[in-house]
């Protein structure tokens, strides 16, 4: 292990692994809240890629984009959790299989 650090590609591969994990969680899980957390995991992976590329290019733009992703994620979490609350009150369940129709 060199004291100087690791290649940039390792950071990007870590981002890819986390993104794949988030996608898998979104597809395989049946709990709405857990699926929502998988989306957050994917957003975090994208943020890591943005920050790593900002380092690579030596520009601040990637950090600004990561900042915007965080703002949008916070807004999305507020609205999404409110929707989950409403769904739970209407269906008394957090399973995604029970939420098949958008009516009622």
């Amino acid at each position, binding site marked *: *292990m060199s*004291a*100087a*650090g*690791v*290649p*940039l*590609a390792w*950071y*990007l*591969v*870590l981002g*890819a*692994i*986390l*993104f794949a*994990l*988030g*996608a*898998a*969680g979104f*597809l*395989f*899980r049946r*709990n709405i*809240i*857990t699926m*929502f*957390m*998988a989306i*957050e*995991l994917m957003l*975090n992976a994208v*943020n*890591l890629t943005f*920050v790593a590329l*900002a*380092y690579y290019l*030596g*520009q*601040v733009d990637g*950090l*600004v984009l990561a*900042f*915007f992703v*965080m*703002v949008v*994620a*916070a*807004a*999305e979490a*507020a*609205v999404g*959790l*409110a*929707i*989950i*609350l*409403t769904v739970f009150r209407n269906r008394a369940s*957090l399973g995604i299989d029970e939420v098949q129709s958008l009516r009622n």
Partner: protein
Amino acid sequence: MDGLLFLIFAAIAVVSGLNVVLQRQPIASALSLVAVMGSLAMLYLLLGAQFIAAVQVIVYAGAVMVLFVMVIMLLNAGRERPAGASLMASTLGLPLLAGLAGALGYVIFLAFPDPQPVRFGQFREGGAAQVGYALFTRYLLPFELTSVLVLIAILGAVVLAWREVRK
């Protein structure tokens, strides 16, 4: 030292990410997600993005995850019922997932053959001053639009919860 820190926190991030996906209890998934976000904040620091690391801890690990944990406790979300996974999902799911990660990794190594390692302290533009300057000059319009977006999100959350209260 940089490489060691990267390996430690990348390992924490991957193991906690696996835990997010594999745990049956939503609260365990949420706490693992906090661990992922904390280790990602450390990696942001290694990449020289102090401001984003601080915002990650405050906004993501702080505000957003507190919201998640609060909703999980409010709804008393218990153990998830195992899904009757289809044959295709159970047989093809993991190989396809490994294929996705492998293809992404291959393309990344193809696109960035640069062997120059990431050095802590090489990128000094990540402070609050530089990010704030970019936000208020070149990215002023998107920044103002996010304020509108956040306002709409607040209104939407209040409206959804309001209907709730009246019922």
